[in-house]
């Protein structure tokens, strides 16, 4: 089911972030949200995820859709292991499935390592895997590959593309190469 955004307005105080936004996000495709910093990309995602309320406007196509997300921040439970963090929103996942997924992005040896002992890049990969392995219809990616080195980024982007194939993906990034690598077919320019 496609997501339709009609006449969306959002302001913070006197600062207008989204002004009469109209867009259509097709189902099962990757849509790239592009704009300079501070122009409301994250705000749009937060409104779509239900974390922020729009001042006015209408959004359809989100009802009953399971969501998954990679935030700009990792948002991991520091006291839990990488495996447990991935399992937190997806208790039905088998440990073996998670271990294999971790192995694929170079974290096979860290499945039972507390996240507090992981590096920034490792945490990022865990946050991405948590989103990819969850049961979802819509995947929100907000600057998902930030902080990864070139090789790891290529590896993780390929994994993301494979695992999110056929799902509705909304990608926020400043890097056109990332949108291209994920096969973004549509662009919303704010």
């Amino acid at each position: 089911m496609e997501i339709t955004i009609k006449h969306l307005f959002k302001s913070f105080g006197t600062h207008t972030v989204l002004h009469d936004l109209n867009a259509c996000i097709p189902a099962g495709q990757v849509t790239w949200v592009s704009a300079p910093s501070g122009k409301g990309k994250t705000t749009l995602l937060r409104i779509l995820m239900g974390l922020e309320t729009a001042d006015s406007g209408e959004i359809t196509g989100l009802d009953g859709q399971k969501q998954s997300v990679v935030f700009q921040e990792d948002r991991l439970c520091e006291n839990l292991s990488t495996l447990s963090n991935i399992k937190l929103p997806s208790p039905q996942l088998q440990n073996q499935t998670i271990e294999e997924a971790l192995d694929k992005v170079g974290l096979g040896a860290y499945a039972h390592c507390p996240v507090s002992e992981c590096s920034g890049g490792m945490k990022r990969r865990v946050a991405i895997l948590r989103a990819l392995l969850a049961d979802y219809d819509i995947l929100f990616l907000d600057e998902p590959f930030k902080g990864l080195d070139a090789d790891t980024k290529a590896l993780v982007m390929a994994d993301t593309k494979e695992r999110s194939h056929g799902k509705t993906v909304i990608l926020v990034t400043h890097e056109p190469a990332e949108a291209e690598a994920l096969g973004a077919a549509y662009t919303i320019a704010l």
Partner: protein
Amino acid sequence: MAGTGDFWLSVAFSLLRIIGGFLTACIAGVLLAALSARFKYVEQFLAPFMLTVKAVPVASFVILILIWVSSKNLSIIISFLIVLPVIYTNAKNGIASCDRQLLEMAQVFRISPARKIRYIYISQIMPFFRAGCSISLGLCWKSGVAAEVIGIPQNSIGENLYNAKIYLDTPDLFAWTVVIIIISLMFEKLFIFLLDRGIRRLERI
């Protein structure tokens, strides 16, 4: 002193009651803190009560409670009243300082309330709760024994302290004081150890 049955009877009597009051206050404090965090009017309703409990001297409580309750159960109520505001305040502060970003993550992923409490809230509240327990364990022993000295329930540590006072038995007074310190320290270590172990087990997915 430790070789007599009366000694162990007194220790058991006071230990069970004071720790009973402490544990009940821990449970009530956390539950009330959770309700206060969820419903503002509960917090507003409880604020004057907690303030009063904190401000009223232990001796006043003891005398008041002795009017309604037998001296046997006095130390339970007194340690409960002394511990409750400490645990309540700490747990409430812990809930208030919970990482909003993690809660948003849980909201988007539709993590069940039970899992949210188990894996997100508990670990965030723990440092506050642990600190509250550490402070209140000392307080509940002080106030519980003080209550027993005033109420003089039979076969309690307080009764022994009272007897030491009226017979001017200074060695006994020191001995019982040392016993209270040892029991208090041992229980604190044991409680914190079990708490940490329980939390580690609870957080295992």
